[in-house]
């Protein structure tokens, strides 16, 4: 932790930082906040997809002649890379579905409720409106889609 000279004492910088914030959904242990979990999952799946995309472009552009292509494909057909592909499939499903929800919420302001006169117990409108139902739907559909992808990839 860096600190900065100020007057007699030094201020302590107290920021968890990018890694903590993007990987730890329990950085703030507050209840009733699955949006935070979705935020972390969205970041992690985004990085997974990006890594896959880079690797994919590299493999398909570097292997120009047929023999090399065959050998690389042979090396990538093991069970370990199968599991890797399954993880990528799950990441794509979640990132895509949650992305639709986020576009609706962030660009059009949909599903965050309307301002109201607060009454105890204070549960703000945005945590009990359309986007929350959408989030549960996203979680359910992603799990189902991921399971389906597993069936198709491993049973087929």
């Amino acid at each position: 932790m860096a600190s900065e000279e100020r007057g007699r004492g030094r201020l302590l910088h107290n920021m968890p930082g990018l890694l903590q914030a993007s990987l730890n959904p329990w950085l703030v242990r507050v209840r009733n906040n699955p949006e935070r979990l979705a935020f972390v999952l969205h970041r992690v799946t985004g990085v997974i997809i990006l890594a896959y995309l880079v690797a994919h472009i590299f493999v398909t552009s570097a292997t120009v002649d047929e023999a090399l292509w065959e050998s690389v494909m042979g090396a990538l057909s093991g069970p370990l890379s199968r599991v890797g592909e399954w993880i990528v499939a799950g990441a794509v499903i979640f990132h895509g579905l949650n992305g639709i929800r986020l576009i609706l919420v962030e660009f059009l302001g949909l599903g965050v409720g309307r301002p109201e006169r607060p009454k105890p117990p204070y549960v703000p409108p945005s945590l009990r409106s359309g986007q929350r139902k959408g989030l549960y739907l996203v979680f359910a559909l992603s799990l189902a889609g991921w399971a389906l992808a597993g069936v198709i990839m491993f049973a087929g």
Partner: protein
Amino acid sequence: MAEKEWGRLPEPPREVVLRVKRYDPERGRTWWQEYRVPTYRGMTVLDALLWVKENADPSLSMRYSCRMGVCGSCGVVVNGVPRLACQTQIAAVASRENPVVTVEPLHNHPVVRDLVTDFTAFFEKHRRIIPHIVRRDMREVEEAEYEFLMTPDEHLSIYQYSLCIMCGLCYSACPVAASDPEYLGPQALAQAYRFIVDVRDEGYDRRIAIVDTEHGCHRCHFAATCSAVCPKDVDPAAAIQRLRRIVFLRRLGLWRKRKVAPLAGPLEKPLRRIRAEYPRHNLVEGADPERQAREPVDIDFREEWLRE
């Protein structure tokens, strides 16, 4: 913040262990310190901290003022959640099985000492979004003769956001503020929205230019923790999303302010001026009847009020 225990708190444990994260600015040292604090029904975390300061360790520093959730200076992280120390019951965060209460300074704000954090940058961000009514003709505000007209519905659309006490809990909980020190933060952005949609305000274009930046409203990724920790139910997460909608539509040329509130102007019926009477019985202590007779007071009344 949603209190699950709201309305039916159990008795707190007899004694709690207060684990406080301390910081010494002179030596640049951080450490955890534990205090055993006897409790009573209704004791808050702030009461426990004050008990420590009075009875166990006078060097413990914290900040507070009103002790009733109004001033917003006592924000600390209790058991991993940013909360107002004065509004958090010990019984809500400690139980007989787990009588440990950890108290840390707010995250994302630089720490001055122990639990005291530096809010300079936070207030600076709030100031940056022009947190007051702006009119084309600023004389309407500065030399105000009349108020602006506003319907109850228009008031309700900003009322929730105007409850903000600037305690900094949302900023402390925000995962984006945790990695980008330049980020305006939930508090400032919610206030920007509150003033942009306020019917009395005409400074929306200036504010939109301020929030429509890399470190402005587009940095938000809707983790919504700000709304989950807000002690006043301000709902910054919803405000930011609606602010982004306005910024987005404004870029496309599809948003404009539908209505700007006019000045109230003079009353249709003039007020009636009547001479007030001083009470003749039950004189107030120190009242001087002679002086009252010398300096009569006139009061302006509406006709309707007089009839009642």
